[in-house]
């Protein structure tokens, strides 16, 4: 299947090893080289069942750090893996729920609330993708999708509301992560969960901006869009603060470019492309 020179048998055994290493008990970020191999596997073979199976058999549930790292790994593979990952993941909600339920009362290192919130967010994300199959895991902008939705304003309106709900959930979750930083300790593991959140929130933001602009161009009922404008502006300020706080985390800015938003939200009545 792949046009790359690959060896399926070797890939399967390496996948198991990569999942194991990405979710080891060290309180660090899941190593990107292992995460990357999992992502590449799903593209090479257009399949994610081995990935989900591999994750399920890892004995991670009695260790809060391992569970948290497994969620970061799953989130990144959902975002950047082959589209089939999002479809296959619909059958994995049981496993995610188990992660949230199993995390012990003896959460010595304070990951329990983070794990529960992360699972909540991932399940919402999966619900979104179930209803809106045209979006990829990172909400990367493609013009035809926004055109498609403004042909049917009702559907467009609903999609925007659903995207905004997801964006609100990212905002709540990131605040929880920041609230759980430990003063003197090494926060690398917690910070690494912010990386996929920054990417995803920015993808949604760009999508919302272009969809709302397209809707404003097309419709005469400006009043009907007023609630969306209000909510969009609120989210703009929330995101701006989130990115500002992320920009102060050296570990994070070494890994990704944190977007910098203007002070004021962009004008939705403008069309930048004329």
């Amino acid at each position, binding site marked *: 299947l792949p046009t*790359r020179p690959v060896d399926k048998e070797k890939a399967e055994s390496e996948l198991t090893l990569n999942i194991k290493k990405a979710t080891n008990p060290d309180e660090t970020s899941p190593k990107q*080289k292992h995460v*990357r191999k999992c*992502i590449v596997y799903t*593209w090479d073979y257009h399949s994610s069942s081995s990935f989900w199976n591999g994750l399920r058999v890892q004995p991670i549930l009695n260790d809060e750090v391992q569970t948290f790292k497994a969620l970061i790994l799953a989130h990144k593979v959902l975002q*950047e893996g082959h589209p089939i990952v999002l479809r296959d993941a619909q059958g994995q909600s049981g496993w995610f729920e188990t992660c949230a339920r199993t995390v012990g009362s003896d959460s010595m290192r304070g990951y329990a609330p983070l794990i529960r919130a992360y699972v909540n967010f991932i399940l919402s994300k999966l619900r979104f993708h179930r209803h809106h199959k045209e979006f990829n895991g990172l909400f990367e902008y493609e013009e035809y999708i926004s055109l498609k939705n403004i042909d049917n304003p009702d559907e467009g309106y609903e999609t925007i509301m659903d995207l905004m709900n997801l964006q609100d959930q990212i905002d709540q979750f990131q605040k929880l992560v920041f609230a759980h930083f430990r003063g003197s300790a090494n926060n690398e593991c917690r910070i690494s969960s912010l990386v996929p959140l920054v990417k995803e929130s920015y993808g949604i933001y760009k999508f919302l901006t272009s969809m709302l602009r397209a809707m404003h161009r097309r419709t005469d009922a400006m009043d009907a869009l007023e609630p969306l404008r209000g909510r969009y502006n609120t989210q703009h300020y929330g995101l701006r603060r989130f990115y500002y706080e992320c920009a102060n985390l050296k570990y994070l800015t*070494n*890994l990704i470019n944190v977007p910098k938003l203007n002070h004021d939200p962009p004008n939705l009545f403008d069309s930048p492309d004329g």
Partner: protein
Amino acid sequence: MAMSNMSKSVVRTGKNYLKGFTGTQIKVRDATSNDPWGPSGTQMNELAQLSFNQNDFIEMMEIMDKRLNDKGKNWRHVFKTLTLLDYLLHAGSENVVIYFRDNIYIIKTLKEFQYVDDFGKDQGANVRQKAKDITNLLQDEARLREERRSRAHMRDRLSDGPPP
């Protein structure tokens, strides 16, 4: 330093021989080695020409794929292969463009490449930037076309000598 590089290149020559790499593959391996210099313009230009031959093209992709998936310690392999790829996308055969569009995830997933060396220097930064640039180029069909056209145009003019 010079000595250790020399002995490394001796080892590389031995490996080339033992593993049965072809002449073209050895050229790719040399251009993307762990030496702290290169690849040179001459090397990249020669490989760009070779990419127009189907056999050489396949052999090249085999080595480039290995190099791109190399581990952090060998970040130079990854970085120099990206440098070579950038050149090939501009001046090599159309097959290079098709191959890496199909397999763009190999490049995309290098945008978070990490390697901090023993002196605490973040050597991954170069790889991350280059991976971003190439991803953007691959996703911008119009720009890639234009850049390939102007490169070919320039090459023709240079080979024809100055206009009369």
